[in-house]
């Protein structure tokens, strides 16, 4: 298919909604910088309007999304640098849809719910630039464009951690930046090489992901090398063992909003990248690399959980739990069955919601007690029962309790991966038990018992905090009880992706169910 026919086949929508999703936060950032200087009290209002508008646009996309279309929708395709085949090509399918919605919803929530301690104007501006970068990464269908957004994201995050973080913020910010930049170097080489090596098969140089995936035919060796280059960049972002150590530092030192965004959507750029630019562009190499990725994923699951168990800092504990949760997502992604990949996509969103909420809760504890040390917290349940209740629901969702969102994704990943990655699944399931161990043990130490002098003054949940958390809990419970609307939007695109892999390799998805009938 040529780009022109692709654009024609997508929804005939006049308004370039995806472009608006990317541009709106940028306009907001400029507005914050410009008008915020004139009138200080406008700063937050402008940031809120920009992020809420973006969120509303993303919800409109969700509502207008056509479930019967497995391809890319709302496509916006314009030439940018035609000499190099670089275009402004945006589009979403069931795989990126909920990540876009999550991004759209999460940003206004943290902007409304968490205030910085100083310098509100640059803080909000960076946050909005970050939103534009993340949005752009999730809707880009051009490798060059994706790389630009992928890199843009680093800059605001670096300043958010370094400027508004805690004691070791500069160390953490530098580490985060260097780690990701090192990964990005591989990504850039991979992107350029993919476009160059596909030149003969496609007929011209293009960075268009859809054309490269549909028409490109790389040799087996080239495909594998390029896949490795892409995978290294995304493994850092996910993060996979052993390139994960930037994460506990960055998460712990970042301001609360930074941690929420980092866990909520930034890590998903890695898992999403593995799916969109790994599996989709290099099907043969993805099938080939599966054992390696299963192994790293399962090491991440067990290792992250064990490290989380022994953390003394509550925020570090949540950070390490992300390593474990993201391991499940990578396992599901490369198990390459309809169920496992759907579960993986769903779990990307679930983890964003529940870990985001956990970081908010830990942030609230820090605001009140100025410590995150588990040993210094005790008996909070007695003095702040409502707070404890919210913490409990969010924590159970992270553990994967049936009836809450975490369960659905985890269950789909495990059952979907069982046929293709049996032994890894069996080991990985231990991680489910360990999740209960580290979170319940932490809950017991922080919330149970008699509060001592320092903890007796712990303030109960305030109205604004309660409203903020209620939004998260509503998503947690709705997805857990009724996952159908979400899965029916994810599944067609996942099925199409697996068919894409099956058409280009000798991999065949095991036939599910109905054995012996």
């Amino acid at each position, binding site marked *: 298919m040529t780009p022109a026919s692709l654009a024609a086949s997508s929804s005939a929508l006049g308004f370039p909604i995806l472009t608006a999703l990317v541009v709106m936060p940028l306009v907001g950032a400029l507005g914050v910088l410009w008008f915020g200087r004139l009138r200080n009290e406008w700063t937050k209002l402008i940031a809120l309007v920009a992020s809420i508008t973006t969120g509303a646009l993303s919800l409109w996309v969700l509502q207008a999304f056509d479930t019967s279309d497995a391809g890319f929708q709302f496509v916006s395709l314009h030439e940018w640098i035609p000499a190099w085949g670089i275009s402004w090509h945006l589009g979403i399918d069931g795989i990126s849809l909920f990540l876009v919605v999550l991004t759209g919803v999460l940003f206004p929530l943290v902007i409304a719910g968490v205030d910085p301690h100083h310098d509100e104007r640059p803080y909000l501006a960076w946050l909005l630039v970050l939103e534009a970068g993340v949005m752009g990464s999730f809707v880009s269908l051009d490798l060059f464009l994706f790389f630009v957004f992928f890199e843009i994201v680093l800059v605001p995050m670096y300043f958010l951690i370094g400027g508004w973080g805690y004691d070791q913020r500069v160390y953490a910010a530098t*580490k985060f930046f*260097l*780690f990701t930049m090192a990964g990005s170097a591989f990504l850039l080489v991979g992107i350029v090489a993919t476009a160059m090596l596909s030149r003969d098969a496609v007929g011209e140089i293009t960075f268009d992901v859809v054309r490269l995936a549909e028409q490109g035919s790389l040799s087996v060796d080239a495909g594998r090398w390029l896949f490795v280059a892409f995978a290294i960049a995304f493994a850092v972002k996910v993060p996979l*063992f*052993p390139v*994960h*150590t*930037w994460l506990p530092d960055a998460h712990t030192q970042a301001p609360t909003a930074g941690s929420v965004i980092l866990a909520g959507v930034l890590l998903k750029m890695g898992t999403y990248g593995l799916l969109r630019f790994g599996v989709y562009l290099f099907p043969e190499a993805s099938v080939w690399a599966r054992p390696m990725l299963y192994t790293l994923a399962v090491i991440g699951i067990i*290792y992250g959980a*064990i*490290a989380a*168990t*022994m*953390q003394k800092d509550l925020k570090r504990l949540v950070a390490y739990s992300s390593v474990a949760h993201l391991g499940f997502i990578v396992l599901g992604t490369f198990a390459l069955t*309809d*169920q496992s990949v*759907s579960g993986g996509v769903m779990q990307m969103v679930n983890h964003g919601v529940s870990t985001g909420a956990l970081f908010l809760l830990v942030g609230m504890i820090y605001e009140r007690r100025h410590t995150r040390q588990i040993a210094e917290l005790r008996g909070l349940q007695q003095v702040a029962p409502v707070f404890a209740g919210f913490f409990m629901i969010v924590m159970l969702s992270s553990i994967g309790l049936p009836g809450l969102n975490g369960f*659905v994704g985890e*269950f*789909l990943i495990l*059952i979907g991966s069982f046929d293709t990655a049996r032994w890894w699944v069996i080991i990985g399931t231990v991680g489910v038990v360990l999740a209960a161990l580290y979170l319940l043990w932490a809950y017991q130490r922080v919330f149970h018992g008699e509060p001592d002098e320092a903890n007796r003054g712990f303030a109960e949940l305030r109205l604004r905090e309660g409203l903020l958390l209620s939004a998260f809990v509503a998503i947690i419970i709705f997805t857990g009880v*009724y*996952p*159908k609307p979400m*899965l*029916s939007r994810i*599944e067609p695109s996942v099925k199409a992706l697996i068919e894409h892999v099956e058409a280009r390799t000798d991999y065949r998805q095991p036939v*599910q*169910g*109905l*054995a*012996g*009938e």
Partner: protein
Amino acid sequence: MLIPLVVLSVLSVIGGAMQLPFSKNLHFLEHWLEPVVEESERSIKGTWAYDNKYVLLGVAIVVALAGIALSLAVYAKRRLPAVEPKVLENAWYYDATVARIVGGPGVAAFDGITRFDARVVDGAVNGAGALARGVGSVVRRSQTGFVRAYAAIIALGTVVLLAWFVWRGWLA
């Protein structure tokens, strides 16, 4: 507790009644989790357990009969001493065993892995940083700012390169 129980029992009666063959439209509960479990509802036919169901049936009956015989011997005839009261009093020693394993070697192993993460994995990362800094602090001394020194180094480099070319015979 009474009111919650009443509510739950009424709801479960309704839930059950909906599954009665009144109307297919009322059966939506069984399709509620469809995308999640639909494809994984497996038939047990064709499995080892299904093919050997009569053997398993026999095993179950024999085990049950043996249990009855044993309890008669212990409690009705008092031919054997009862060993289980103490075990049951301690709940099969399950909690104690778990606590000993988890609390002893379990914590030690977990602590070891966490220390491995902080020292070895993160140590390698910070080590790479320290290496770069160390190399930089040595190499930067060559940047003296003396133009004549730079010129001398360039001249020396040219001579070395020329010597190399001549030696390899590239200039011949």
